[in-house]
């Protein structure tokens, strides 16, 4: 899949227009794909797209976490479902709780997404993750205009992401070259003041 970060992003299309929404959702979906892959790669897991139906993937998970986000330009929510075997594989401490780790992964995923959105001059505020355990999960009903889900598969297990996003009136998702210069700190980076 082409990296949306490489696309020309100049767009004067007013938000609310279908073109603006199409650009925004395309960028947003691309960023979600990129940050999901990058997050799991940082824990040594290579993810490939999984074309299985959502219901099939969700049947194999016991933990899901969800976080909301909001900003002037856009708002929405992200749901992360990870199979226990993959959670175990990425667990940074052997004695840690899988449920807690599932929430922290969602937190780190949205943190990465936030850092990427800064390049579009969008500053989102993150809510706290909520983790639910159980079985036979079903997709939540759509509450926002743009809802998308994607599945991933790896040698260690499966990942399922469901996002809902709403673009504010008159908002755009356009990459700002000057904003990229004042880049946010990268994952793992440390600065001492």
């Amino acid at each position, binding site marked *: 899949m082409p990296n949306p970060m490489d696309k020309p992003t100049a767009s004067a299309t007013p938000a609310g227009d279908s073109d603006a929404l199409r650009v925004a959702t395309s960028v947003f979906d691309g960023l979600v794909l990129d940050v999901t892959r990058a997050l799991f790669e940082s824990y040594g897991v290579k993810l490939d797209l999984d074309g299985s139906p959502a219901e099939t993937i969700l049947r194999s998970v016991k933990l899901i976490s969800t976080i909301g986000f909001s900003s002037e330009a856009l708002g929405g929510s992200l749901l992360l479902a990870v199979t226990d075997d993959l959670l175990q594989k990425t667990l940074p401490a052997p004695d*840690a709780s899988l449920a*807690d780790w599932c929430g922290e992964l969602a937190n780190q995923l949205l943190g990465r997404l936030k850092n990427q959105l800064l390049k579009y001059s969008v500053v989102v505020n993150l809510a*706290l993750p909520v983790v639910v355990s159980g079985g036979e999960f079903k997709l939540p009903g759509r509450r926002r205009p743009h809802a998308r889900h994607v599945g991933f598969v790896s040698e260690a297990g499966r990942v399922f992401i469901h996002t809902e996003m709403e673009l504010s009136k008159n908002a755009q998702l356009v990459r700002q070259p000057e904003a990229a210069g*004042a880049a*946010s700190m990268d994952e793992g980076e440390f600065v*001492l*003041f």
Partner: protein
Amino acid sequence: MSRRVLVVDDSATVRLQVRQALGPAGFEVIEASDGQEGIEMIQRDAEIAAVICDVNMPRKSGLELIEAAKASGHTAHLPIIVMTTEGQPALVQRAKAAGAKGWLVKPFKPSVLVAAMAKITS
């Protein structure tokens, strides 16, 4: 000098990671699960030598913890490292202005954390 480090994070996994990183390096790690608990612990434990805190937490955020620590004569000297998934420049600058000593973006390398804590507690 005390080697007691308070880690404030709502994720038990992250607190465990910090404990496992700093413990073998000779630090004594104690934990708080949100900003409010962190504030209460630094106010009552004079042996705490440094604090590592997340930003987005229940009750009180990491930034509120920094502001509370710096506002009190008993705790104003405490070096505080922010450890979070966020790297937003404005947020980093806000923490610096509030008196934070450093900023680390998760996920972290244990060696980086150990070196940072060794430096600020020496």
